[in-house]
């Protein structure tokens, strides 16, 4: 661990929403840190709590039916205890956010220029002319051609990629220390996605802000993130520096993600290995390890014991919440990577975890697929 003070330190964050159907445990004890000028990738599927944890940092989940616990320390201040005024000073200023769908995040009735200028005036005591100059400067920085004319246009006159550039320009107007990007490229075509990712990396280098990028795409985080947190059912199940995570993934869910996606950089294989079942309901959560109903390597005690995110003996920067023994996990991933059949890997899990009935449990997970 570096001695550097993290810019954002999240400790045991819990966010619950009360609904008519029951309590939704959207985030259930997440802890992570973002260092200044670095990029954290949060990976997960829909409903894993990855967006909610970031929205909470900006106070966007506060409400009558929300319970928020834990700490989110930004430069030493707990964002969760800030009042609305103080939070407004942070939001759009020190911490900014870009969203997946830029068309619904921009106001359709106002010109792009008006929306950008408002962003500057809300946080800085400058003249309108200065604010306009700043807006123009940012549009140039994000690579929008003909920015003077573009300032007077409405969002619908922009293409998807250009709109996302406007969002980025807006987020960077006040030189934030932290930019949260929630699925910033999911709605975009692959060539435009590459442009936007390159732009984010370039701007980070020039402006030095930290980035939290939330995505379901392991490829995207591999490109851009320094550290990765994998979320499942409201919890972080694995956390590691990017290269370490891809070189030695530890959690069966991470394995599942890596092996269920066809990829361009490996020889074409005949079979994908899907993760059986589907993500659990956050109202009626599985007991014990939340991943156990879908885990091919589940042991009887995993249904009762709740795994904690703990560092690996070999590398404290790599943390995982899994009840399998570290030694066994290494052997299992090695076997998976070399294409061993699931049954064989299950045997490894059973032999190493002193439990019985691994085969039977695995069959159950498979039947659910």
């Amino acid at each position, binding site marked *: 661990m570096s001695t550097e003070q993290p810019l954002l330190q999240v400790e045991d964050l819990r966010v619950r929403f009360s609904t008519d159907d029951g309590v939704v445990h959207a985030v259930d004890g997440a802890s992570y840190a973002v260092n200044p000028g670095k990029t954290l990738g949060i990976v997960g599927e829909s409903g894993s709590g990855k967006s909610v944890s970031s929205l909470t940092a900006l106070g966007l989940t506060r409400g009558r039916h929300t319970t928020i616990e834990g700490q989110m320390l930004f430069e030493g201040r707990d964002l969760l205890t800030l009042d609305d005024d103080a939070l407004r000073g942070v939001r759009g200023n020190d911490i900014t956010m870009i969203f997946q769908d830029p068309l619904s995040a921009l106001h359709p009735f106002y010109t792009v220029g008006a929306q950008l200028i408002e962003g500057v005036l809300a946080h800085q005591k400058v003249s309108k002319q200065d604010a306009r100059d700043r807006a123009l400067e940012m549009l140039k920085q994000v690579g929008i051609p003909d920015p003077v004319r573009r300032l007077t246009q409405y969002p619908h006159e922009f293409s998807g990629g250009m709109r996302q550039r406007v969002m980025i320009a807006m987020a960077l107007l006040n030189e934030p220390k932290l930019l949260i990007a929630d699925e910033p490229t999911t709605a975009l*075509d692959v*060539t435009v*996605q590459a*442009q936007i990712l*390159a732009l984010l990396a370039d701007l980070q280098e020039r402006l030095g802000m930290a980035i939290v990028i939330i995505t379901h795409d392991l490829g995207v985080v591999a490109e851009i993130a320094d550290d990765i947190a994998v979320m499942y059912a409201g919890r972080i199940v694995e956390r590691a520096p990017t*290269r370490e995570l891809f070189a030695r993934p530890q959690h069966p869910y991470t394995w599942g993600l890596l092996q269920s996606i066809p990829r361009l*950089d490996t020889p*074409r294989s005949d079979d994908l290995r*899907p993760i059986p079942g*589907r993500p659990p309901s956050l109202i009626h959560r599985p007991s014990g390890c939340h991943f156990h109903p879908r885990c091919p390597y589940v042991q009887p005690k995993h249904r009762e014991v709740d795994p904690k995110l703990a560092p690996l003996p070999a590398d404290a920067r790599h943390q995982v919440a899994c009840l399998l023994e570290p030694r066994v996990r290494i052997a299992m991933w090695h076997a998976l990577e070399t294409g061993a059949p699931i049954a064989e890997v299950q045997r490894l899990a059973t032999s190493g975890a002193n439990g019985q009935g691994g085969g039977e449990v695995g069959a159950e997970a498979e039947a659910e697929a």
Partner: protein
Amino acid sequence: MSATREPMIQVRELTKHFPITSGILLQHQVGAVKAVDGVSFDVFKGETLGIVGESGCGKSTTARLLVRLLEPTSGEVLFDGRDVARLSREPLKALRRDVQMVFQDPYSSLNPRRRVGTIIGEPFVIHGLCPDREERKRKVQDLMDRVGLNPEHYNRYPHEFSGGQRQRIGVARAIALEPKVLIADEPVSALDVSIQAQVLNLLQRLQREMGLTLIFIAHDLSVVRHMCDRVAVMYLGKVVELAPGDELYSRPRHPYTGALLSAVPVPDPPAEGEHRERFLLSGDVPSPANPPSACRFHTRCPKAQQRCSEEEPPLERKSGSGEEALTACHFPLTPDEAAARLPPALTR
């Protein structure tokens, strides 16, 4: 996959222009969106043909033209030697028994007020097959079992299923009449990553079991590589490259294919000090209402020269290409240029 080289569908100079009109009372056409503009290819029996491209390239329009959900502006779609575009009502209905579609959005493509059993059994009703209710129920339950749904859920409504299960419902409906051809238009792009593989594996299994010819349309190049024997790359209403998948993904010739491959993020972080060079395209895709002259890619192509804006390149075999690889480009990528665009792990 061994495809017998017998064409199932032959597409010849297929064109679809959507008119742009002006005026309220006296409407007149002021232009046309050239969604599909002179596309020709064959689909062979038993193979999987992939169509890739970015939004607006005409891939979905092509799919809809193949089953005549849209009327082509010109050109032919020959199915078993007969032109789909000229079929009258009855033979067209018969054709649709043989060619079925799976749609992208499993939420909007299922009627929310019908029970799943009714949805999957509907093709039998439409085609007047199997009028006996009990038998139909049995058949539908067989289908549900076949696509991995619990047959006991026959009486449930679509909203009671997850996205992946809904897509299975769509697949069950599509294979109900044992079609010869299945057209899947972005079948997994609305699904969560951990669910995608389930549906892809299902499609592959059904194809094997039923000897289906599969036309697989997607924007995700990795998924298309996994699924397809041959791949057509579309850009602004044109096929710019058509080649066996193995060749296309290891030796792209069209600069646009190269740009697509170069843009795909791979879950393999670069090693310390390593840097993957990107061949980023500048700007956006031009409007299909007013596409660039001659080669449509010339406005964004790193290799474009004078000739590219004057003379349209034909889709043809290039020197050094395999038997079946076609490229529409005057200045195709050299081997070095192609290699530089592939993920580093493939060339390392």
